C-alpha cells in the first residue's frame, strides 16, 4: 500500500433537464423573482471597442433547433482582458464578459449583445485569435458542452491561432467560425451531430 493522494472526485454531472430556466432564468420562465435574470446584460454602461450582436441556435442530430437549451458565453473585453479575476489586471468596468441566453421559446435562437473580444495570450504567451467560450446545457445533454467561437473575418489571426492551426481535421474548423450576418451581427450555429457537427472541447 502507498499513501493516499487524498484527492476528491469531481461531482458527476447530471443533465440540466427541461426546466433549467426555472433555476437560471426564472423571470424568463414567468417566475418574477430576484429583480431580473443574471447574464441578460453584458454591457452595464458605455463600453470600449466594437459592439456586436451574436445570434445562433443549437441543432440536434435531426436538424431540429433545441428550444430548451441554455447557452452561456465567457469572453475577454475589447482589450483582451477578462473581467473579474484576470491576474493581468482590471477589465473594462462596464463589461461583464459573461452572458446567459435561454433561447427563444419558439425558434430556440439565442442572442447576445456584446463586444468583439481582444486577443488573449495562450499558455506560452503567443496571442490567440479573438474567441468566445461557449457552454451549452439542455435536456438530453449529460455533461455541459464547451466549445469556442472564432470570427470568420479574422483570417490572419485564425491562421496563426495555436488551437485552430493544430486541429487535425482542418475541414471541421469552419464549425467554430461565426459568420458576419449584416453590420455588427455575427451568426454562430451549433450542431450536436451530423456532417457539420461542431467541434467540442475537452478543456
Amino acid at each position, binding site marked *: 500500500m502507498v499513501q493516499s493522494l487524498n*484527492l*476528491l*472526485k*469531481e*461531482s*458527476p*454531472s*447530471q*443533465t*440540466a*433537464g*427541461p*426546466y*433549467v*430556466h*426555472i*433555476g*437560471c432564468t*426564472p423571470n424568463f*420562465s*414567468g*417566475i418574477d*423573482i*430576484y429583480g431580473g435574470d443574471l447574464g441578460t446584460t453584458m454591457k452595464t454602461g458605455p463600453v470600449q471597442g466594437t459592439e456586436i450582436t451574436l445570434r445562433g441556435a443549437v441543432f*440536434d*442530430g435531426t436538424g431540429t433547433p433545441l428550444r430548451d437549451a441554455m447557452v452561456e458565453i*465567457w469572453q*475577454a473585453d475589447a482589450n483582451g482582458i*477578462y*473581467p*473579474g*479575476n*484576470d491576474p493581468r489586471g482590471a477589465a473594462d468596468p462596464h463589461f461583464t464578459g*459573461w452572458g446567459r441566453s435561454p433561447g427563444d421559446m419558439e425558434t430556440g435562437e439565442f442572442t447576445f449583445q456584446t463586444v468583439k473580444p481582444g486577443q*488573449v*495570450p*495562450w*499558455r*506560452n*504567451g503567443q496571442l490567440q485569435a479573438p*474567441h468566445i*467560450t461557449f457552454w451549452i446545457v439542455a*435536456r*438530453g*445533454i*449529460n*455533461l*455541459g458542452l*464547451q466549445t*469556442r467561437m472564432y470570427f470568420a473575418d479574422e483570417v490572419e489571426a485564425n491562421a496563426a491561432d495555436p*488551437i485552430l492551426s493544430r*486541429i487535425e481535421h482542418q475541414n471541421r474548423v469552419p464549425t467554430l467560425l461565426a459568420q458576419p450576418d449584416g453590420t455588427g451581427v455575427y451568426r454562430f450555429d451549433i450542431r*450536436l*451531430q451530423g456532417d457539420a*457537427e461542431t*467541434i*467540442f*472541447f*475537452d*478543456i
Partner: protein
Amino acid sequence: MTQNGYFARDTQWHPPALTPGYKTSVARSPTRAKLSFPTSLSEETGPVFGHNILGPLDNDLIHNFAAADQSAIGPRIVVYGRVLDETGRPVPGALVEVWQANAGGRYRHKKESYLASLDPNFGGCGRVITDENGCYEFRTIQPGPYPWPNGPNDWRPAHIHFSVFGQGFAQRLITQMYFEGDPMIWLCPIVGTIDDPRAVESLVAALDMTRTIPMDARAYKFDIVLRGRRQTFFENRAEGL
C-alpha cells in the same frame, strides 16, 4: 503568463454523452471525439458574483415566492454543504443556483404536464453564494418524485437541480442532488447515465439530524466538488504546452 491549469475531467466518472436509456440523449449527443487542450486564461478565469446580487429570501424557497405570511407546502428541510475542489480546498464566492419540483412533484413551468397540483406559494428556485469557507445553506421543501416521458413508466427520484460556478469557467457544472434512502434513485434512467455506483452515491445527500432545526426542518448535507487546480511547484520554470 498562464495560471495553473485545471485537472482533466474523468470521463469514466461523468456520464457519457450517448446513453440510450435516456432517450433524449440519442439525438443530442456529439459523436466525434472532443478536442483536448490544456486550459488557458480563457477557461481559468470566470465571472465573479458578489453577495450584493442576493436578496434576503433568495436562499429560502419556502418563502421567496409565497404571499406575505404564507409558506410553501411540504416537508421543510435545510440543505447545506460546502463547495470544494478536487484537492479539498474550499471554493469561496461560488454562485449556487437551485431549482426543483414542489412537494407533489410538479414544476412551475409552461411545458410541465404532470397532473399534480401547483402550490401557489412555491416558485421552485433559489440561489446562494458560498462564504469564505466554501459553505452554503438554503431552506426549501422536500420535492416529490414525478413521472416523465421516456420509457412507459419512468419516474424521477426526489431531486434538486444545482448549477454551480467555480472560479474558472472550466469548472462550470450542473448536477442533481438526491435524498438518502430513496429507492427510486436506482430505477431512474437519468441517474443510470452514470456508470459508477460510487459516482451516483456522491450525489446522494445524507440526512443530518444534528443540523435539524427542532420542530421546524430536517437537514440534508450535500457537498459539491469542482475540478481541481494544479499547484505551482516551480514558479520560475518556463511553461510550454
